[in-house]
């Protein structure tokens, strides 16, 4: 990983653990009466959202504001993009206004990679979800949630997820969350099993570092965490499965199925949930379900990523060096932020 965050596959184990550890420090800020650090003061970050995503945008915005960055929100609806402006022109226009980082959500797989590599702009690029490709901060916040719950908040520091058995269930074919999670969880030493009807598993999955099963019931007892993916109702119109009911019966998580999981195992969901489809209300509202926690953790993870990518411990006027890697940058404890700012 260099100065951009495009894919979870670009992160080394040490990069990922550093981000998780940094996020734990960031989480402490949320416990303070004043939830703000001066770290990115004077830095401008644009949230460039070509696809509707209220929760991801708000999560990034909260993270940026807690780090005192100046935030510009750009959504494609009603903008020049809807009048036919290209991604390149939009990006260059925003950069001309002096942005240090671009957080991009785009419906086309690879759009953030293009933005980072085609020479259109110089700013750091953070992928907030591209098509059916990647959503690396989601994978990081999921790993963060798993580490806290399965290893421990303090015990987890410096640790990865070695040996943890993670089951991801649902529409893998159309899911950037699944792709990012398989990459990152493998890097962190976890054993991943994907469970889906064969129609929702991509051709070519055989090279992924995970197992694939079509049988949820036999996988549940061997899971430390079960991540349910959203399944859009429209999929049945394209014959991916016959009916909603049949999908729920075969691949949905209800109370009865949850009981087959080991006692310590957690239920996760990236949201938004389709209650009654992949998950019942009983499961979604249970103690074992971490959905709300994941949202809170998302802010900490995004703070950590922004901090590490934008070099929060460097003078605000300096541009991050393109050759600086995450792992080479040591995290400054939260208490030092204040010191830096007061200097």
């Amino acid at each position, binding site marked *: 990983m260099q100065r951009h965050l495009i894919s979870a596959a670009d992160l080394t184990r040490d990069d990922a653990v550093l981000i998780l550890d940094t996020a734990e420090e960031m989480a402490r800020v949320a416990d303070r009466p004043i939830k703000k650090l001066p770290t990115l003061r004077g830095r401008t970050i644009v949230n460039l959202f070509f696809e509707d995503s209220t929760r991801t945008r708000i999560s990034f915005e909260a993270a940026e504001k807690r780090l005192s960055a100046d935030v510009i929100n750009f959504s494609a609806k009603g903008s020049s993009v809807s009048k036919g402006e290209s991604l390149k022109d939009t990006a260059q226009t925003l950069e001309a206004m002096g942005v240090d980082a671009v957080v991009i959500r785009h419906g086309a797989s690879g759009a953030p990679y293009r933005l980072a590599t085609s020479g259109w702009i110089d700013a750091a690029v953070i992928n907030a979800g591209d098509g059916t490709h990647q959503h690396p901060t989601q994978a990081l916040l999921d790993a963060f949630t798993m580490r806290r719950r399965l290893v421990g908040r303090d015990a987890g520091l410096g640790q990865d997820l070695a040996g943890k058995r993670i089951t991801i269930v649902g529409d893998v074919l159309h899911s950037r969350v699944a*792709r990012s999670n398989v990459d990152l969880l493998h890097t962190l030493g976890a054993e991943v099993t994907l469970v889906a009807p064969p129609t929702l598993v*991509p051709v070519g999955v055989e090279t992924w570092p995970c197992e694939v099963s079509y049988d949820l019931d036999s996988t549940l007892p061997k899971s430390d965490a079960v991540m349910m993916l959203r399944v859009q109702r429209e999929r049945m119109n394209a014959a991916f499965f016959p009916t909603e009911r049949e999908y729920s019966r075969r691949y949905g998580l209800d109370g009865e199925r949850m009981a087959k999981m080991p006692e310590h195992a957690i239920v996760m969901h990236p949201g938004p949930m389709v209650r009654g489809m992949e998950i019942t209300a009983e499961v979604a509202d249970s103690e074992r379900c971490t959905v709300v926690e994941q949202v809170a953790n998302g802010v900490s993870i995004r703070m950590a990523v922004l901090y590490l990518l934008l070099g929060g411990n460097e003078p605000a006027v300096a541009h991050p060096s393109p050759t600086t890697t995450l792992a080479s940058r040591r995290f400054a404890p939260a208490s030092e932020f204040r010191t830096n700012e007061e200097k």
Partner: protein
Amino acid sequence: MSKILIRGAKVLGGEPQDVLIDGETIAEVGVGLSAEGAEVVEAGGKVLLPGLVDLHTHLREPGREDSETVLTGTRAAASGGYTAVFAMANTFPVADTAGVVEQVYRLGQEHGYCDVQPIGAVTVGLEGRKLAELGAMHESAAGVTVFSDDGKCVDDAVIMRRALEYVKAFGGVVAQHAQEPRLTEGAQMNEGVVSAELGLGGWPAVAEESVIARDVLLAEHVGSRVHICHLSTAGSVEIVRWAKSRGIQVTAEVTPHHLLLTDELVRTYNPVYKVNPPLRTERDVHALREALADGTIDIVATDHAPHPHEDKDCEWAAAAMGMVGLETALSVVQETMVDTGLLDWAGVADRMSVKPAQIGQATGHGRPVSAGEPANLTLVDTEYRGSVDPAGFASRSRNTPYEGRELPGRVTHTWLRGKATLVDGKLT
């Protein structure tokens, strides 16, 4: 009449010989021919081939003159050693009437850089529903014999059957763009290991192979001949091989890019690699090369598809499909087929000139390099190596996947019926 003596050229890669052009025809081929009264071109061991013939070119005129015109496209053709190109029908308006094909034909004649033989649409507006007036296009001044909805598949089995039958009356051939439309909805690249990782919609090999299988069986049933455009998979090769072994009248083409590039390049998300059919796997590339060598695939056709810069300078999903190819085709074939020992230069002449001229019935093209034949010739410096610089292209578009890539071979001279269209690598 003007005379030109090409001195010391390896005709079809053989021993150096002299070739004397007198007017529009080859007057004499031999050793130590007299240069009297002739302009002399010192070939110095370069390879002399019959002028290349491209059965699959998009010239974009009328309608998309921002990407290519008949003039710029035929200049690109001459630059690449071509003396005849077949212009695909997916223009605006579509070449589905005698009026449009005659316009394209006449523009080619006027510019004079290479012969332009229009291809007529199979169905009105390429919509796949109603046969276009195939007979009228054949009887027009353009004399169309090849029909194709290229860009779209004639997916309706009945329409395809009728088209195959109908053109028998005047010896025509239907060239099929084999792509099952339902299996390729939202398709962005080859479906496989790379598409799974990149999260790009898959274009499965079976979408091509199933249509080819259907069409060779239809051709057998109605006793017609069918031509398969830009065959791209190992499975398609097997089907065509089987069909030929049964005596079915099928011919097939492969593009230079499918002989060289694979879907691994899509990992860059650079739309310069976006093309239809998509780049496939290493295994497919090798199957295609072997099939071209053993004759299962009859010809190389460029599928030269110019697009303006903005249609490629964007995210992958928004980009247009296609690559320019006329000016790099021979180099790619040298790299993949000649320098690998799969084909000699006589074989290249066969796959890039003789056979395409036969399939398209391009009179006067693809002829032997011997006395009395039309002087449609291409001189190639096969020792040359250089990196591809799109800035030097004669095409109006620059969407080449080879920018900066080192490729062998360079066309230095092209003659169209004795008239030089390219001299020392410069268009006349």
